[in-house]
């Protein structure tokens, strides 16, 4: 019987024993070439990420409607955040939908990826992989338009099918309870393919010898999953948690097309809300203040995830 330490994450990992290819040597004189290669990326980052961020930060201290000269208002826009009665509700609906989408992507994505890695004919595996990945490459607006048609309460296909099972019509898009659920379903349906793809790559990188050794040691499927697959997959899971958190908090097209954020603000997201303030109210300063604080919220969330990840993520 193998001791439990053998099954501890990292122990016996082939990658640990194998030193791998030698690290590339750095030569004197490579600096200018490296800089030349990096410069386009750096320039893109400066122009399309850093500069707009700095610009938005600056705008958040101004009152500006795009068409007339702006006026400096100091921290007024940030003070307005504290008195905006709708903002907290929109944060609530955004968080609800984002966490649900995150859970579906991370948990259901893992489950589906594991299922796809079980024995099945090659063509069937290919079919499933393509089916799951296909929605990911289609435009979010197109996806939402089709789903809007399917989810119509009185004339949609989904309620028709539910009716065959004697389930009453659900107001998927018009009720405060189901509108956010519809956004969660549609966004998850679109994005889960990416999570599955990443999970499959992670699963395939786990050396088979470990599973085979565990089988020889008498470990069941559940034990193998928890003691081998899950720990070795933890960096992949962490990556997906971070990426999906950031992406799901920033959804825009699905609620915009499906429900227009309603009814009320029940399916409205922060990004949609700040867009309306900027390009509906022409209140660029306030929209920028919302954007800056929202970015900070995401940074803090990601930092917390990184901090927690040290407890459960195993890189070797």
């Amino acid at each position, binding site marked *: 019987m193998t001791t439990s330490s053998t099954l501890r994450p990292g122990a016996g990992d082939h990658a640990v024993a194998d030193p791998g290819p030698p690290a590339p040597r750095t030569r004197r004189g490579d600096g*200018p*070439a490296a800089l*030349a*290669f990096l*410069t*386009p990326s750096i*320039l*893109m980052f400066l*122009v399309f990420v850093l500069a707009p961020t700095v610009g938005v930060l600056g705008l958040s201290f101004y009152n500006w*409607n*795009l*068409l*007339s000269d702006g006026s400096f208002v100091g921290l007024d826009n940030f003070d307005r955040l504290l008195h905006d009665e709708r903002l907290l509700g929109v944060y609530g609906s955004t968080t609800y939908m984002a966490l649900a989408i995150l859970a579906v992507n991370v948990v259901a994505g893992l489950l589906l990826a594991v299922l796809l890695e079980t024995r099945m004919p090659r063509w069937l595996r290919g079919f499933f992989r393509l089916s799951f990945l296909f929605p990911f490459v289609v435009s979010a607006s197109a996806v939402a*338009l089709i789903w*809007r*048609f399917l989810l*119509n*309460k*009185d*004339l949609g296909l989904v309620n*028709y099918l539910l*009716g065959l099972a004697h389930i009453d*019509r659900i*107001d998927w*898009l*018009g*009720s*405060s309870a189901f509108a956010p659920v519809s956004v969660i379903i549609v966004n998850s349906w679109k994005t889960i393919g990416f999570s599955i793809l990443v999970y499959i790559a992670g699963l395939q990188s786990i050396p088979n010898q470990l599973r085979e050794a565990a089988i020889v040691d008498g470990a069941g499927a559940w034990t193998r999953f928890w003691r081998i697959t899950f720990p070795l997959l933890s960096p992949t899971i962490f990556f997906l948690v971070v990426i999906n958190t950031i992406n799901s908090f920033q959804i825009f097209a699905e609620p915009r097309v499906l429900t*227009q*954020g*309603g*009814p*009320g*603000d029940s399916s409205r997201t922060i990004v949609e809300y700040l867009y*309306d303030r*900027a*390009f*509906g*109210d*022409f209140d660029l300063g306030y929209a920028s203040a919302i954007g800056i604080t929202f970015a900070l919220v995401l940074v803090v969330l990601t930092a917390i995830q990184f901090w927690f990840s040290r407890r459960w993520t195993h890189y070797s």
Partner: protein
Amino acid sequence: MNIPQRKVALACAVTALAATALAGCASGSDTPPSSGNKSLEIVYWNYGPAAESGNKATADSFMASHADVKVTLTPVTGENWGTYYANVATLIASGKRPDLMVISGEGAQFVHANNLVQPINAYLDKDAGAKAIVDDIAKGLIDGFTVKGDVVTLTYGWNDMVVYYNTDVFKKAGVEPPSADWTWDDFKATAKKLTADTNNDGKPDQYGFTWASNEIFPGIMPWVANAGGNLTSDDVCTATADTPQVNKAVTFLNDLIKEGIAPAPMPMSDVFTRFQNGQVAMFGAGRWPIATFLPAGFKAFDIQLYPKGDTYKTVFGGAGYPILKSSQNPDLAWEYQKFTVSDEIEKQYVGTPDKPGDSIPSRRSVAETISKVGVPPANSDLYYDSIDKYPTLVPYPAPAKYSTFESTVLRHLQQIFAAETPVADGLKSLQSELSGIVTC
């Protein structure tokens, strides 16, 4: 030749860098035309292929008749007029200085309040040909684009709100087509007869009527107007969303849903599809649906006025090319605006039976040719008659913050029509929120 790979790669990287830099410079090299040249830059809402081809045809015709003028078209996207204005504002903020921009009636207050537009009153007074043009345009279309005495633009095309009905569904249900003098009660009775459970599952799958959930113009406004109300005061300075008239209109529509005569409201594009396949027998819109229906081969429809409530008022909106204050050639811009209401261009909005225009020509003499050319529907003369022979809703409730105004109204109506808020409570909270948006 033996060239070191590293040097080649380095050269490629430097080239890429230079290309990036040049591309960046190119996008910023938008120099305004000098005052001496004869060029015009025009911004329009690119809502679809018809917008692009229509604007291009107008620009090409103008350049053909003015050989020394160069017209540059700038298409701007947007999911509706409101977002289009927002995107144009972004364009102007980035330094673009167009001579003219396409606006709808909802945008008249916006461009006027933001001091973007140069009124055309002086041109109308001094231009010898202007009087004949204005006399051939319904008064409502001039009034609709007049803000505080300033005429913002001539209207080249417009739309009124009429009821579309599916003639096949009417025939199948044995229901007579509606007449122009029908009332709300007649309408409701008709819609009820057209509602059917075709698959016998105990629930309707064909409905008498629906309306657009994403726009107030073809959504609730005809009902509000015919109840004798409006969403703003006549000076568009105060919200009037919780009046008994508005309550009556919204309650009527809400009852249609509650009684199963209308499905849950849906966006206009979905309404088109449901109407064509017979799932919805009637809906309200302007002339623009025919640009979708006829090319798709769908001709089983006709139009009628909205039913009369406590009163009848035609709800309409138009579009025009106002001259912007940023124009370096305002006189030439006026010539262009005048050209957009010339016979040559107006005929484009008449179209042909296979390729119809998507709005009504503003010139009466041209609009009258629609039925002569044979462009469906059969009752096409009603389009212009509705503004010439019937009272109209003026002003259209379009405050300067129209985009916010419309989205606020729609947000509250969503809750009412989802039966989550009683009509009176919903309108009260709508009024409260609008009071900060509708101001002067």
